[in-house]
């Protein structure tokens, strides 16, 4: 009868199947935000009860996964604060669905009891009934209902079993039974309550999960497990460097033919220039990474779905502990090799706020796929394609060196930040090792699709806007070049007098110590939106055709008209590469940092410290390489 919508809270421990249930109840349409003051994700969705009569609208609140209502960090306090209505703008739930995993009922009941004793109307959902049965366990749900005193529904979330019953139940929370005597408030007494419930309702105990045991014997074996871990890492990088190439070449070809077609349709002139150089070349330079993104996300979410990621975190935890982080931070940093955005989102699995923040701040140092085209251009143009040993080439070694430099920088900065920035008592490291599971193909596909969609949306919005803006800046104001210049020099003259050219010149005093001229300056400004934009920018500046080889030749042969020296000497190239290892040139990363840390303070900090690092490292590199290389040393 009230105007406010009915609010249903979902509460349960991590890995209880709570999120699957949330998706099933809301049809995946959720609103994601943050709770004020903490970095805890706030998810709410509209309750989808189906078309039955008497169903009213409602809101489902996905409360953060928790083992306890006795918080030991500010982040954990959120659950209790929501339940008790202590957060502004977040009305407390009217009723709760407590989610517990059938296999770990003995532990889950500790939380269930703590929730039930607080008196909100509640029902209990038991998930993973299928795994319990597969392990030979039997659970009497009717007896469980009698023992805990609230309605109980068993569901198999990913197959949708039991959801009908649950929806009916949710439709009428006023009919829910309440426990005659609430579970005890004292923790140890409540443990006794939980044990006695379990002994009443678990008719046959589940055995070990033999399959998981057998797999773990190999996956976590000191030798075999380490070898497997290394193999997964090699596969991972193989995906980035080799297996994505055919699809990327295909997209490259498609972009080139699209540009040719657009040029054919418009003929010569400004409109044609705008479409081909501004829009198609700019966006095409980014869309080309789609295959890498899809393959990497595909692999990462597959490893997560089958249960390997927790094992990988387990294997590397000790090494990560050395630098003051934990195993799950490694998984987040690994994802950052694809892109810092999903990497930063993956830090949500890290319970300790300090570890989360440190991981978020160093994630941009991991070599994301957007740096690859920059590295590929410069290394391809200036590092000789010599063979060092066997199949190993010099170019590959330099590329590997850049990846290693980024990773070392990330680990060093993490170690420093963990010791200085937010010292203090950390949370204990605890992590569940879930049973291995076959992935659900449809769920997996939808995860990969949504990340591909997010990436394309970025290309269609930020990158498109920057490309268009850049084209205008490079084209206007139009200055008539002196008549005696040939065609190429005339184009270069017009460019130098454009708005972007003037901006580049204005920047020159600041970047000259790094060995950068005004053209690189324009590229750097443009790359603040996204790193890979510098390639598109240089392509526009050198008015090169879309084929990479011609841009490569153009940068290789560019000569400074005043000094007669090559613009890209070896010191400059090395300095620029190092700059890209460190600098945080990515608006999407800053935006996701803002969302995940709930303030502009941390993205501003990350941007500044990485800019200082980039400038310092580039300066040192430039001087060092100039000193080491022969006088007048052109590459």
């Amino acid at each position, binding site marked *: 009868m009230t105007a406010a919508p009915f609010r249903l809270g979902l509460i349960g421990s991590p890995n209880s199947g709570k999120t699957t249930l949330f998706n099933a109840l809301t049809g995946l349409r959720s609103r994601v935000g943050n709770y004020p003051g903490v970095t805890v994700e706030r998810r709410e969705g509209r309750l989808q009860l189906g078309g039955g009569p008497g169903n009213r609208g409602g809101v489902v609140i996905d409360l953060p996964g928790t083992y306890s209502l006795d918080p030991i960090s500010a982040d954990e306090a959120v659950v209790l604060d929501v339940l008790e209505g202590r957060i502004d703008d977040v009305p407390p739930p009217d009723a709760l669905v407590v989610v517990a995993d059938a296999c770990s009922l003995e532990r889950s009941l500790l939380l269930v009891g703590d929730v039930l004793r607080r008196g909100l109307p509640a029902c209990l959902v038991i998930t993973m009934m299928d795994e319990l049965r597969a392990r030979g366990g039997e659970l009497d749900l009717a007896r469980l209902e009698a023992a805990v005193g609230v309605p109980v529904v068993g569901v198999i979330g990913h197959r949708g079993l039991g959801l009908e019953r649950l929806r009916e139940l949710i439709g009428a929370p006023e009919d829910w039974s309440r426990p005659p005597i609430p579970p005890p408030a004292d923790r*140890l007494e409540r443990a006794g309550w939980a044990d006695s419930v379990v002994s009443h309702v678990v008719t046959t105990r589940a055995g070990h999960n033999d399959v998981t045991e057998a797999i773990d014997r190999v996956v976590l074996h000191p030798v075999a497990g380490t070898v497997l871990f290394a193999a997964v890492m090699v596969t991972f990088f193989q995906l980035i460097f080799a297996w994505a190439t055919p699809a990327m070449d295909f997209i490259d070809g498609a972009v080139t033919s699209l540009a040719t077609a657009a040029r054919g349709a418009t003929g010569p002139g400004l409109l044609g220039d705008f479409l081909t150089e501004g829009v198609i070349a700019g966006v095409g330079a980014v869309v080309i990474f789609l295959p890498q993104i899809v393959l990497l996300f595909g692999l990462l979410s597959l490893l997560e779905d089958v249960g390997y990621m927790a094992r990988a975190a387990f294997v590397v935890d000790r090494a990560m502990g050395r630098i003051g982080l934990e195993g799950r931070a490694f998984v987040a940093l690994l994802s950052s090799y694809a892109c810092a955005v999903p990497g930063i989102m993956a830090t949500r699995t890290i319970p300790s706020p300090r570890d989360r923040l440190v991981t978020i701040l160093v994630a941009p140092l991991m070599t994301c796929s957007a740096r690859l085209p920059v590295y590929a251009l410069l290394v391809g143009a200036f590092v000789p394609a010599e063979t060092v040993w066997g199949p190993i080439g010099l170019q590959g070694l330099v590329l590997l060196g850049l990846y290693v430099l980024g990773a070392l920088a990330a680990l060093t900065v993490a170690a420093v930040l963990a010791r200085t920035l937010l010292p203090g008592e950390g949370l204990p490291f605890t992590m569940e090792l879930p049973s291995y599971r076959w992935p659900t193909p449809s769920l997996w596909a939808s995860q990969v699709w949504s990340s591909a969609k997010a990436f394309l949306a970025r290309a269609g919005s930020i990158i498109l806007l920057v490309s268009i803006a850049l084209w205008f800046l490079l084209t206007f104001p139009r200055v008539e070049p002196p008549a005696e210049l040939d065609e190429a020099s005339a184009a270069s003259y017009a460019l130098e007098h454009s708005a972007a050219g003037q901006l580049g010149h204005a920047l020159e005093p600041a970047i000259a110590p790094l060995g950068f001229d005004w053209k690189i300056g324009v590229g750097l400004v443009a790359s603040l939106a996204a790193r890979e934009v510098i390639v598109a920018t240089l392509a526009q500046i050198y008015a090169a055709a879309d084929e990479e080889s011609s841009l490569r030749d153009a940068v290789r042969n560019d000569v400074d008209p005043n000094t007669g020296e090559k613009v890209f000497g070896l010191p400059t190239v090395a300095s620029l590469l190092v700059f890209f290892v460190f600098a945080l040139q990515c608006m999407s990363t800053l935006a996701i940092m803002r969302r995940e840390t709930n303030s502009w303070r941390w993205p501003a900090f990350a941007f500044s410290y990485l800019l200082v690092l980039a400038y310092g490292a580039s300066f040192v590199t430039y001087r060092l390489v100039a000193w080491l290389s022969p006088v007048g040393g052109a590459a």
Partner: protein
Amino acid sequence: MKTKFNFTTGAQPGEDCALSDLAPGQSGQVLEVDTSVAAGRRLLDLGFLPSTTLHVLRRAPLRDPVVYELRGYRVCLRRADAARVRVRVQLADEDDA
């Protein structure tokens, strides 16, 4: 009967020791948990409660952390946190009761 000598622990069945001193394959019953710090309270929430029986499954390749099985699930702890739990060592097959 083959006697296995364990380099990492001298804990014998019936003796009391820290959870971190149990070797993989051994079982123990929780006696008490040091709850003087928040980390200890979290261990209680995870089910490391007095009289709970647990089993040490395996160590990570770098010997830390360690996976424990208790209350129907598997959880891993670092040795430093496991040291907060005192256990009574059980005979190898006592946990299969």
